[in-house]
């Protein structure tokens, strides 16, 4: 089983070594994301998620340990079946680990009830998917408004927040359109607006540009980067496109067969950010 700590955490390393697990290289300098607070937004400890497929046991996530600081922009890279989406689902609280811990905002998701996990998905994380996952029977406004309904926000407040979120992604003119009437890029922008609406601290994006052409993909990625930079939102993005990760993420984590095989800062992005800040 392979466990890697993204941070130079002696405690974690000690823990992992104590359990006889291989620790991969941590020699690369830690990335310094914009508005990074230093407090870990996500802490994953020896996380395993195994699926039983008939008689075979599939280790989708196999002993992963890492920390993601608040405000970081992390790309989870890996080939198909490497376990990156499974890891993302565990951080989102959509799935439960077989063992280990996923600690978000000082709460171990493995210990939460179904209702508490729903609250975590509602308040703490926002999700964007490759296939947009908008409710096809609802208009854009209704789709964006949906998390606010679950959060029991008053109707009058909801309308204002929905408009604001759609304006932010440039879709205020398409509020009453159904997803099928929009392009892929517009649908993904609407999904971004929906993910933003409850002002989560963590944005989880599962192949957000996977169904988009490169131009539209860039547009979406620019939005995501903007949320990271201007709102200080922590971003965890799953992608199999290394170029995309290198262009936007400040840290790249590579998964293979459910194990963390590499974790390094993206120095080019960090440098350009530093330049921008200067």
């Amino acid at each position, binding site marked *: 089983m392979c466990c890697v700590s993204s941070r130079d955490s002696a405690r974690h390393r000690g823990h992992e070594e104590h359990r006889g697990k291989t620790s991969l290289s941590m020699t690369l300098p830690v990335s310094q994301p914009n508005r990074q607070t230093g407090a870990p937004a996500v802490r994953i400890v020896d996380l395993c998620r195994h699926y039983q497929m008939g008689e075979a046991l599939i280790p989708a996530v196999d002993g992963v340990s890492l920390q993601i600081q608040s405000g970081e922009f992390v790309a989870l890279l890996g080939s198909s079946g490497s376990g990156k989406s499974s890891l993302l689902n565990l951080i989102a609280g*959509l799935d439960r680990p077989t063992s280990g811990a996923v600690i978000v905002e000082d709460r171990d998701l493995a210990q939460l009830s179904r209702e508490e996990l*729903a609250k975590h*998905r509602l308040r703490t994380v926002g999700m964007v*998917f490759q296939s947009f*996952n908008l409710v096809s029977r609802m208009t854009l406004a209704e789709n964006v408004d949906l*998390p606010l*309904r*679950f959060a029991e926000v008053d109707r009058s407040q909801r309308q204002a927040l929905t408009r604001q979120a759609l304006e932010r992604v440039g879709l205020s003119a398409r509020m009453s359109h159904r997803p099928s009437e929009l392009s892929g890029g517009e649908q993904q922008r609407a999904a971004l607006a929906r993910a933003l609406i409850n002002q989560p601290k963590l944005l989880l994006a599962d192949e957000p540009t996977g169904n988009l052409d490169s131009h539209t993909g860039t547009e979406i990625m620019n939005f995501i980067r903007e949320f990271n930079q201007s709102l200080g939102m922590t971003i965890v993005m799953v992608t199999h496109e290394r170029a995309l990760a290198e262009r936007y993420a400040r840290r790249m984590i590579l998964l293979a067969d459910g194990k963390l095989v590499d974790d390094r800062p993206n120095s080019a992005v960090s440098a350009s950010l530093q330049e921008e800040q200067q």
Partner: protein
Amino acid sequence: MKTYDLSELALRNLRESSLRNSLTTIGISVGVASLVAMLSLGIGLQKLATRHLAKSGLFDTVVVTSRRELRGFNREDQPSTASAAESRTLDEPARQEIERLPNVLEAYPDIRFITELSYQDKTHLTMVSGIPDSARSNDAFTGIPGSFFSSETAPEVILQKSFALELLGKTPPPGHEDDVPVSDLAKPLLGKELTMHYAQRVSAPESAAENTAATSGASTESDAAYSVVSREQKLKIVGISDLDPDSMRGAARARVFLPLKLAQDLRVMQPSDVRDSMRGFGKQPSYSTVSVRVRNPKNVEEVEQAIKKLGFNTFSILDATRSLRQFFAVLDLFLGIFGSLALAVASIGIVNTLVMAILERRREIGIMKAIGASDSDVKKLFFAEAGAMGLLGGVVGVMLGWAIGHVINLGTNIYLRRQALPPESFWSVPWWLVGAAIIFAFIVSLVSGLYPAARAARLDPVQALRYE
């Protein structure tokens, strides 16, 4: 999720699959309509029976007798005399006292006697009874060929059908009396005259009474003396009653009816007169029975108790009304069960629709869970959809049931009219049934939604999101 958001989303979802949801709602409507129709029929029939029985005067009548009367006949094992408290005479002051009791509409003496009536030189022996003017609203006398008595003292007579048949010499074999329409009997009899031969009680002059007492050597109970004089009275036939208004009297039932006041004025010798003369009760004739009409059948028991306290015996057929209520309660129960069968089938339709909706909306449920919907939010949403279908189905079903009832009522009345029978209302949809049917449909729908809602809530969001 807030209630109005939940309702809005549920209605929206129902609108989206309008055809399937409409069909399911129609299924519920048919179920509710069948339930409402069945129960309305039961309630309508009960009302009809109660109305007719109330009009028959059987259920709001208390028959009062003197306690001494009952001890007199074939009760050798019981003392033949009653104590002073038990032996009140059922005479005019007693009748007036009874009439003053609360909830008593009227108390009238039961004048009945066996006598001979002549019609076209033939003599017929039968029981004759005096009936009060209030009996004109009685079922037996409404809508009869001819009319009710023109006044309380008019020398007029109403015949029961069987006696009319006898007068015309048309006596059909037993059990076939109904084959002859009463209108056929009315034609030859209405307006014709009958001669009634009767024995009149005439008070003897005081002196004669004294002589009688002296010769008998008895005490001075001279005022019990009277003469019996044979009389004749011409009576005009004004109506023929198809029903048997006096049926509760059994063997003593009358077949010829006179105005009560006329019967009283005729002072026809009553069987009780003989007993009065033996007991020497006084100058005032006593009544063998007094009929008491109460305001409502519900008051019968209370009036009976009050009359018993006055020292009389009472009889009513209250127990028969209880049995009738019991019968209709059982009938309503069975009709309700049969009516509910369709609703039970409809509830399976709800389960089917919602399970189909879960399959169709699997991904949507996954999306909702991914963006923060809790299990209870999803469960409530499916519950709300089931409830909305139930509520709508209930409302439409009640209207449908009402319409079906109306149409059947209309059809039945057309048939009755063709059969020369008076129209009747067999259908009754009380407000409580409207409310209860809608609530029942709502509850059945919610129960039907239990399984689909639980299944939707249990859906694994990761699996649901993978679903295409």
